[in-house]
């Protein structure tokens, strides 16, 4: 007989384990199917971290169970009623009492509960009512069993099996309640079968087999159903949580995308600005180069012209000397006299021309004396008016605060006269407006970058514009070259503007020209404002408003603070300057009563001028404030930060305006 290679020894322990595993799998209790769901194995209620979800589950269970429950009630009534036919067939003698139980007791109960399902409070009592219904319907059948036993009918126990089927499945009772009702029915049947109806032993055993087995099977089904519902709920919850997580991740992602987009947009903007700045500075550089080239060219021509002028003067000297002497000796009636006079006149013209060349090449001797610039401008205008065609209108706007500058009046006269003559010439055919504006400005670093020859400081500015034919770029570039002219032959030497250029350069000033063909031309002359001029000769009416108060002057550019200090001290004020807003604030905190006025630049690193003023006003509300800014459009945003009134000065600073505003602010109550 062949011997098996392996003997399987199956003991009772192993059998138990196999059975247990099968049961667990059937009920759905295995870890694979229930995951990490924690619950009470008997009542099935959620425990541990899921206990918070119990009421939510019950609520959800109720919502889902309500309609199936109603349906099962209807079904129960149909079945309970239909079995009345069985009563009539099998136990006609008990028919009446059975029908009484069915239709007078059980039916009203089922109907009442059915009606009650439409009330809100039903939610709270649903499970309890299902238990009661199970028990009441079961109890009705038990009464019928007891009564049936009298006539040896023991078959009605099967009705209880139907009730178990209903109770554990359709009625949607929870496992624990259905089991309670089930076992109560079992107990009630045992009591009635053993003690009341005296059921024969074999029938009792037979019935109990079917009856208890169906109750246990019902329990297992109920257990499995509820567990399955709970697992569905749990899975749904897990899914919701995962969805929430995904949503959260999505939202974080969206935020990051938005943030990154914002950063990119900002970077893009910065880049654009940088490009703009570069293009601008490139343009400025190229303009400066052109200016410098023009200046060099003019200077070279000037040097050349100067050299020629020297020789010319030497040549003209004997011509003029001898003709003068000859004219002295020639008798009045001499025929040579006319010829000699012509030679002399020509030599004088030559002399004047050379004089102009020398002015252009800065070879003339400059004698600087106090000059009332405004007076000269008015003189020239009056002079011109006499011979001006009436199609040309002269407008003037002269800042009376200019006072006196150090210059040669002849030179100033020449500048204004030459520029005006040119302007009038440009408008002689169609008329127009000659506009002369005189004021003083504070030239800052920005302006010095645009115009060659200028340094940071205060300048008298003469702006002379016409509405004449204007000029193109090429003409504009050569306009200051000597002998360059667009006038027809004989109407000008071509030296006028080069002479103006020479004079202005000689005074360390600058001249610029802007022009649009067909629209007109604007000449701007800058002459340094000389503070160290002879104050004694200046009448009090020419003076700018002065004062003795202590002023705190703040600007992040050292040059500007230096200039501001010099300028304000010349007006008599005591001045403390700071180039850093924080330092200025510290200084003010130490001596809040010392300063009557704060003059501050608006655009500074760390703190805006208005912010600084606001902080200082909190310490001393009486502090007067003047804000200097280059950008008027930005000021509307900042007015909030200052508590109280303040004045604004726009860059470039006009000296007379500045001095007046300071006085006005200080004199305000």
């Amino acid at each position, binding site marked *: 007989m062949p011997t098996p290679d392996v003997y399987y020894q199956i003991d009772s322990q192993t059998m138990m384990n196999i059975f247990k595993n099968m049961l667990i799998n059937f009920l759905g209790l295995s870890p694979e199917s229930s995951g990490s769901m924690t619950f009470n194995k008997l009542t099935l209620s959620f425990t541990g971290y899921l206990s918070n979800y119990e009421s939510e589950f019950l609520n959800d269970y109720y919502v889902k169970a309500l309609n199936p429950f109603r349906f099962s009630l209807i079904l129960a009534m149909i079945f309970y009623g239909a079995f009345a036919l069985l009563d009539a067939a099998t136990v006609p003698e008990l028919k009446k009492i059975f029908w009484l139980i069915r239709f007078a007791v059980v039916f009203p109960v089922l109907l009442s509960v059915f009606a009650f399902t439409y009330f809100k409070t039903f939610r709270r009592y649903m499970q309890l009512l299902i238990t009661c219904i199970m028990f009441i319907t079961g109890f009705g059948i038990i009464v019928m069993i007891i009564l049936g036993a009298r006539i040896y009918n023991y078959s009605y126990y099967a009705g209880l099996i139907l009730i178990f089927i209903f109770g554990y499945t359709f009625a949607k009772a929870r496992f624990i309640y259905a089991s309670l009702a089930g076992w109560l029915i079992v107990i009630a049947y045992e009591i009635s079968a053993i003690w009341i109806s005296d059921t024969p032993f074999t029938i009792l055993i037979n019935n109990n087999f079917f009856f208890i087995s169906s109750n246990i099977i019902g329990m297992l089904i109920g257990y499995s159903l509820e567990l399955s519902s709970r697992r569905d709920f749990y899975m749904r919850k897990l899914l919701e949580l995962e969805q929430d997580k995904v949503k959260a991740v999505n939202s974080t992602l969206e935020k990051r995308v938005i943030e990154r987009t914002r950063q990119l947009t900002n970077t893009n903007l910065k880049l654009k600005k940088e490009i703009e700045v570069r293009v601008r500075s490139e343009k400025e550089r190229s303009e400066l180069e052109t200016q410098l080239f023009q200046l060099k060219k003019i200077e070279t021509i000037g040097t050349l012209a100067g*050299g020629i002028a020297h020789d010319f003067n*030497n040549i003209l*000297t004997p011509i*003029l000397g001898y003709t003068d002497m000859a004219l002295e000796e020639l008798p009045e009636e001499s025929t040579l006299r006319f010829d000699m006079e012509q030679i002399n006149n020509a030599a004088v013209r030559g002399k004047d021309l050379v004089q102009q060349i020398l002015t252009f090449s800065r*070879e003339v*001797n400059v004698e600087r004396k106090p000059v009332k610039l405004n007076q000269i401008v008015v003189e020239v205008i009056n002079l011109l008016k006499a011979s001006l065609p009436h199609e040309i209108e002269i407008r003037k706007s002269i800042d009376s605060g200019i006072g006196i500058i150090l210059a040669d009046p002849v030179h100033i006269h020449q500048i204004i006269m030459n520029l005006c003559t040119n302007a009038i010439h440009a408008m002689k055919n169609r008329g127009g407006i000659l506009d002369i504006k005189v004021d003083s400005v504070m030239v800052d670093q920005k302006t010095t970058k645009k115009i060659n020859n200028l340094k940071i400081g205060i300048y008298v500015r003469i702006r002379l514009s016409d509405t004449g034919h204007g000029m193109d770029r090429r003409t504009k570039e050569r306009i200051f070259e000597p002998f360059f002219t667009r006038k027809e032959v004989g109407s000008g030497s071509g030296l006028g503007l080069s002479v103006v250029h020479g004079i202005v350069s*000689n005074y360390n000033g600058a001249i610029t020209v802007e022009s649009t063909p067909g629209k007109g031309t604007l000449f701007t002359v800058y002459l340094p404002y000389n503070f160290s001029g002879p104050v004694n000769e200046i009448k009090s009416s020419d003076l700018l408003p002065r004062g003795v108060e202590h002023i705190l002057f703040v600007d992040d550019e050292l040059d500007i603070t230096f200039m501001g200090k010099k300028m304000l001290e010349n007006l008599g004020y005591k001045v403390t300057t700071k180039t850093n807003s924080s330092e200025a604030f510290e200084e003010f905190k130490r001596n809040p009563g010392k300063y009557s006025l704060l003059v501050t630049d608006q655009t500074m690193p760390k703190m805006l001028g208005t912010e600084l003023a606001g902080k200082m006003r909190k310490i001393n509300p009486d502090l007067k404030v003047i804000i200097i800014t280059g950008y008027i459009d930005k000021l509307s945003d900042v007015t909030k930060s200052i508590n109280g009134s303040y004045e604004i000065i726009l860059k470039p600073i006009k000296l007379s305006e500045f001095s007046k505003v300071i006085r006005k602010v200080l004199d305000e109550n």
Partner: protein
Amino acid sequence: MAKILVIDDDPSILTMLKKMLEKAGYEVDIACNGSEGLDKIECCPPDLLVTDIVMPEKEGLELIFYLRRKNPGLKIIAISGGGRFNYEGYLTSAKHLGADLIFQKPLVHKEFVQAVSDLINTKL
């Protein structure tokens, strides 16, 4: 008769000035550069020196500078046709160095003769 020494490197100017000043009644000597002029001053000092500035050998500014220390009583008129030296020009420098009068060439005849006369008659 007052003595005038004229120094200029341009012979036509030199002869013209000599004639002009002699006509005005002065005794005029001439020199065509600074060194020659200085020799003549040392040998026979004039009442007035009229000197050009841009000249070979010894130029006018150097001459004026030297003479102002050596011979402070000498009256000096500087004349020049221009030429680049600094922003202020040669004549202004000549004035700073001690020239009593300065004249830009070409000279205005009457004005110049009058100035010479006034300067000679001035007691320093």
